[in-house]
C-alpha cells in the first residue's frame, strides 16, 4: 500500500473539527462579544435616539446612578430575584419529591406542571393581568362565592405588585425546576435509599440527609437557570404590570428597554445594559470556572 501524502491527509482530519466549530464560534464572537463591545461604546457616547459615536465618557453612568428609578429597579430585582429563585426551587423540589412517590398519574401531572413554561408572555400576561385584577379576577370570583372580605389586590398595590410578578414568574418556571429535580432524583442510586432505610432513617431523614444533598448539581443548575431568567425577565413585567403601578415593578431589564427605546436615552440604556452584564458575569464566571476547571465524569 502506498499513501501519497499521509501528512496532508492527517492534517485535514486534524483541522476539520476546528473548521466545524469555527462558524458557530465566529457567530458568537461577533453577535455576542462584538455587540457587548458595541454596547460599551454606546454607553460612553452621546447617543439618544439613534447611535452616535461622540465620546461622552462616563456621563451616562453618572446619570444612570442619579436616577431614583434605577435604584428602584435594582431593589425590585433583589426582591423579585430572591423570591423567584427560592420559591421556584422549594416548590419545584416539593413537587418533584411528591411525584417521585410512585404516583400512578405521574404521566398526566408532569405536563400540567410543565406547560406554563410553554406559554409566551403575551399569553401569560393577557391571562394573568385579568386573573389577578381585583375587579375582574380571582378576588371578584371568590367574593362572588360569598367570601365578601376576601381581598387579593396585590397587583394594584405598589408595595405588593412586585410580589404578584414573582407569583406569575414562579407559576411559569417552577414546573421546569420540578423537571430538573425529578431528573436528578431519578439518577440517585436506589441501593443508597435502601441502605439508609436499613440504617434506620425515616423517609423525612432520608430526604434531608441523603437525597437533597445528593441533588446539589441539580440545585446549581436550577439556580443558574433561574438567576439568568430573573435578570432577563422583561416580558413578564411588561405583560403583567408594564412596570407599574407607578414604577413599583420596574426591573433593570425594563429600565434598560424604556431608556433605550422609549425615552431616547440610548447611552443611559446602554450603561444600564453594561451594569446588568457585569452582574450576570459576576454570577456566571465563577460558575463556569468551577464547572469547566476539572473534567467532571
Amino acid at each position, binding site marked *: 500500500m502506498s499513501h501519497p501524502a499521509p501528512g496532508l491527509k492527517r492534517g485535514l482530519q486534524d483541522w476539520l473539527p476546528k473548521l466545524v466549530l469555527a462558524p458557530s464560534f465566529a457567530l458568537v464572537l461577533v453577535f455576542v462579544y462584538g455587540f457587548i463591545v458595541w454596547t460599551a461604546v454606546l454607553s460612553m457616547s452621546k447617543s439618544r435616539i439613534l447611535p452616535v459615536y461622540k465620546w461622552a465618557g462616563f456621563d451616562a453612568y453618572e446619570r444612570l446612578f442619579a436616577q431614583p428609578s434605577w435604584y428602584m429597579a435594582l431593589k425590585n430585582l433583589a426582591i423579585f430575584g430572591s423570591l423567584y429563585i427560592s420559591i421556584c426551587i422549594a416548590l419545584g423540589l416539593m413537587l418533584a419529591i411528591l411525584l417521585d412517590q410512585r*404516583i400512578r398519574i405521574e404521566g398526566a401531572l408532569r405536563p400540567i406542571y410543565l406547560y406554563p413554561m410553554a406559554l*409566551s408572555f403575551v399569553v401569560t400576561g393577557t391571562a394573568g393581568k385579568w386573573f389577578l385584577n381585583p375587579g375582574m379576577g380571582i378576588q371578584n370570583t371568590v367574593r362572588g362565592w360569598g367570601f365578601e372580605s376576601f381581598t387579593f389586590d396585590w397587583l394594584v398595590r405598589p408595595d405588593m405588585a412586585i410580589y404578584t410578578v414573582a407569583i406569575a414568574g414562579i407559576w411559569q418556571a417552577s414546573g421546569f425546576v420540578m423537571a430538573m429535580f425529578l431528573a436528578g432524583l431519578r*439518577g440517585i442510586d436506589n441501593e443508597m435509599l435502601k441502605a439508609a432505610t436499613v440504617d434506620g432513617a425515616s423517609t423525612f431523614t432520608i430526604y434531608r440527609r441523603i437525597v437533597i444533598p445528593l441533588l446539589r448539581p441539580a440545585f446549581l443548575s436550577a439556580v443558574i437557570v433561574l438567576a439568568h431568567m430573573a435578570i432577563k425577565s422583561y416580558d413578564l413585567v411588561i405583560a403583567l404590570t408594564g412596570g407599574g403601578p407607578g414604577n413599583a415593578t420596574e426591573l433593570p431589564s425594563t429600565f434598560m428597554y424604556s431608556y433605550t427605546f422609549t425615552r431616547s436615552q440610548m447611552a443611559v440604556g446602554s450603561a444600564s445594559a453594561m451594569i446588568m452584564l457585569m452582574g450576570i458575569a459576576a454570577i456566571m464566571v465563577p460558575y463556569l470556572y468551577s464547572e469547566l476547571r476539572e473534567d467532571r465524569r
Partner: protein
Amino acid sequence: MSRNEAAIATAAGPGWLNRVVIYGLLLIFAAVYLTPLFVMLATSFKSLDEIRGGDILALPRDPTIEPWLKAWGSACIGVTCEGIKGYFWNSLRMVVPAVLISTMLGALNGYVLTKWRFRGHKIVFGLMLFACFIPFQSVLIPMARVLGTLGLSNSITGLVLVHVVYGLGFTTLFFRNYYEAFPTELIHSAQMDGAGFFTIFRRILLPSSAPIIVVCVIYQFTNIWNDFLFGVSFAAGESAPMTVALNNLVSSSTGVKEYNVDMAAAVIAALPTLIVYVLAGRYFMRGLMAGAVKG
C-alpha cells in the same frame, strides 16, 4: 419507575394516609397550575356579554366557537382582517429552520467539544455558554445594523439567523453535556474502522442522540415560538411571527376589547408549544435525565 418503594411503603405511619396527602397536594397544585389555562379556554368559548357580567371561573353557559373562527380567520390586525392564520404560518416558517439549524450546529459543536478536543476547548465553550445569558434588549440595535448590512432586515430569514445565533449557547451546552457521557471508545473504534469526522457523527453519534435532540428541539421550539422582542424588532409587518400578531390583536389601544377572541387567539398561539410539551414531555424528562441539565 417504582422507586424508594421500600422507603415509602414501610417507613412512616399508615400508608394510605400518606398516599392521600401526597395525591391531595399534587392535585391541588395541578388545579392551581391549570386555572389560568382553564380561564383562557372557558373565556374563549363565552360570548362578550357573558364575560362582562360573569365569573371568570365559570364554564361557558352557551359555548360558542365563534371567537375561535374569528381569531383564526377574520379578526382585524392592522388594515387586513384575515385573523392570525397567516402569522401562524410565518411562525412555523421561522421556527422550523431556526430550530433545525441551531440544533444541528449545537450537535456538531458538542461533538467537537467533547470528542475532538483541542487546546483551549474549555475557553471556547465557556465563551459560547456565557452567550446564553446576555440580555437581548442590549443587542437589538447592533443586530438591526448587521441584519441591514446583510440585507436581511424585516425578513423571516433574518429572524432565523437571530434565533440561531442566540440559541447556539444552549444547544451546544445540551449536546456537550450529553456527548460527554458518550463512550469515547466508540469514536476510536469507528476511527479504526475507517470512518471520518462526519461519518462518525452521522452514523454513530447522531442515531444515539434522540433524547437530547428532543430536549433541544423542545427548548428551542418553545423559546423561538414564544419570542416577541426579536420578532417585533426585526420582522414586524407581513413577515411578523405569531406573537407579534397576537400582541397587535390583544393590546390595541382603542376599540372594544373582544376578550373571547383575544383568548382564543392566545390559545391558538400557545397550541403548538402546548402540544409539543404534552406529547414529548416524557422524552423531555428522559433527555433531562440523560444529562441536558447536570443533576
